């Protein structure tokens, strides 16, 4: 790796990228040494959650062994250190998505909570009866249900942008849905069920021509490629930590400061106030206003460690490797007789959803599991996508940069075994 690929870390240090060697990478993930039914684990359910590198595990252990204290309140060194570590993690997140200010980075439990926060604090204040909210036909349930709840409460209307047979966002149809009644757009950047990358740049630009704010669900995007929220210019961007090689129970909401400042708090409690009397409570400035209660401190710090780890490898390197692996996997799986692939968008990230003629996805998963191969089956929390393709369920293999071509070969061999069992 040459010096051209060096980058700055959050605290301004030069950090040279590691040369991308998948075997070296794999050694960083202790779980990949596990045997399942006597066979090496082949983990292909990364869109559900990713595995954790040793540095993230060590960070959690060190935090609880050496740094644990509540934050933002202790007048003693241990609390000060914990606060510092947590706020450092916020800076790392800010740098990772190139947010203008760390005040715009809110720690949540998950991307689901990030979306619910926007629905509660922005939606309840600004959305009125007859207003329209636009989502796409390939949203995760977490970017459907909160908006449905809001629409029901306010008498607003949910509009859904259709997808093509290839699983591509229909930009023409979207443009037609944008009207003076449209008051919000919430769209995923990468479909969890199909892997399609949506044209978020154009989606946001078109919305902005009508002065409509946009939320991007980045849960399936940030693990695969560099995201720059200033370049996107979206109002809100959410993602979860555990799909980004960090701990579960931690997520991020980025929001433009001007909007966040005008919004209602999400939950009331400790940490989100400046002063409380029984007559009046003054809320803390952002981001604290949206962070009631003791947060998942270890989770935030662990997410910071995951981001350091990823930046040490380089998101460009990760993306290049994963794209090569995806092309290989799509070709290998689709060449298997009887396989039908769902999601063939030109721009795709990390997901191969498929079915096998005459075999239910659940049976595919059971048989592959006996080979040590973990894939997801079911509706992938995206039932409208299943309906769109007229199937009750799909099998899904989803990739991470620690997966290999040999593992894809094993997946294909496993699919042949499924066919054998079903004669």
């Amino acid at each position, binding site marked *: 790796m040459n010096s051209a690929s060096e980058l700055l870390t959050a605290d301004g240090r030069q950090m040279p990228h590691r040369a991308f060697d998948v075997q070296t990478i794999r050694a960083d993930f202790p779980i990949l040494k596990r045997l399942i*039914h006597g066979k090496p684990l082949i983990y292909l359910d990364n869109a559900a959650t990713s595995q954790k590198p040793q540095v993230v595990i060590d960070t959690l252990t060190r935090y609880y062994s050496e740094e644990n204290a509540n934050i933002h309140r202790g007048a003693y060194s241990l609390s000060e250190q914990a606060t510092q570590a947590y706020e450092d993690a916020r800076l790392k997140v800010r740098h990772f998505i190139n947010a203008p200010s760390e005040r715009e980075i809110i720690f949540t439990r998950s991307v689901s909570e990030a979306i619910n926060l926007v629905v509660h604090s922005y939606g309840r204040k600004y959305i009125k009866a007859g207003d329209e909210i636009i989502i796409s036909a390939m949203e995760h349930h977490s970017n459907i249900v909160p908006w449905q709840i809001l629409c029901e409460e306010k008498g607003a209307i949910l509009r859904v942008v259709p997808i093509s047979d290839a699983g591509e966002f229909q930009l023409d149809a979207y443009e037609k849905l944008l009207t003076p009644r449209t008051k919000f757009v919430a769209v995923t950047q990468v479909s969890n069920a199909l892997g399609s990358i949506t044209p978020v740049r154009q989606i946001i630009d078109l919305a902005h021509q009508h002065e409509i704010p946009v939320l991007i669900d980045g849960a399936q995007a940030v693990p695969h490629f560099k995201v720059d929220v200033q370049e996107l210019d979206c109002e809100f961007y959410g993602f979860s930590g555990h799909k980004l090689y960090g701990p579960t129970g931690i997520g991020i909401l980025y929001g433009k400061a001007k909007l966040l400042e005008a919004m209602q708090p999400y939950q009331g409690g400790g940490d989100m106030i400046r002063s409380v009397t029984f007559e009046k409570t003054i809320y803390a400035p952002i981001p604290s206003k949206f962070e009631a209660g003791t947060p998942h401190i270890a989770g935030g710090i662990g997410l910071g460690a995951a981001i350091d780890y990823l930046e040490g490898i380089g998101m460009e390197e990760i993306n290049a490797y994963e794209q090569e692996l995806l092309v290989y996997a799509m070709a290998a799986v689709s060449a298997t007789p009887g396989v039908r692939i769902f999601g063939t968008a030109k721009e795709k990230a990390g997901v191969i959803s498929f079915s096998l003629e*005459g*075999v*239910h*996805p*659940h*049976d595919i998963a*059971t*048989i592959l599991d*006996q080979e040590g191969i973990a894939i997801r*089956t*079911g*509706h992938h929390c995206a039932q409208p996508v*299943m309906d769109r393709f007229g199937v*009750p*369920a799909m099998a899904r293999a989803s990739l991470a940069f620690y997966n290999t071509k040999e593992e894809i070969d094993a997946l294909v061999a496993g699919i042949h075994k499924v066919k054998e*069992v*079903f*004669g």
Partner: protein
Amino acid sequence: MSDLRELYQDLIIDHSKRPRNFRVLETANHTSEGYNPLCGDKVTVFLELEQDRVKNVSFQGSGCAISTSSASVMTESVKGKTLAEVEALFDVFHNLVTGKPADGGATPELGKLAVFSGVSEFPVRVKCATLAWHTLHAALQDKGEPVSTE
């Protein structure tokens, strides 16, 4: 592979590909719907009861090999039985697929249902094997609302 063969026995594969009594039963006087939200399996059980005896039974739906074949074998097994006999059979079947030892005392003959013994090695598949039975149970009670495994 031995566990797999134990699970996917020929009879199960056969019934999953060619389910028996797979139709709407026009003469049904009890029906119920079952749903497994985890995997999307759906089943509707149609029952024609004559006093306390199952005169006829059928099912429809979509699901994995285990749930489809279980529904299919179930319809064959309960036809002609009394309600008490059906409930006793469900108990024995439930013990079989969850790997619990059979209760003491007289137990009904499992017959073909015995092929589902391999399911007990696959805990996540127990719900697949029992969905049709829970749905049948609800049809007998005529609860009139869909049964969910969750």
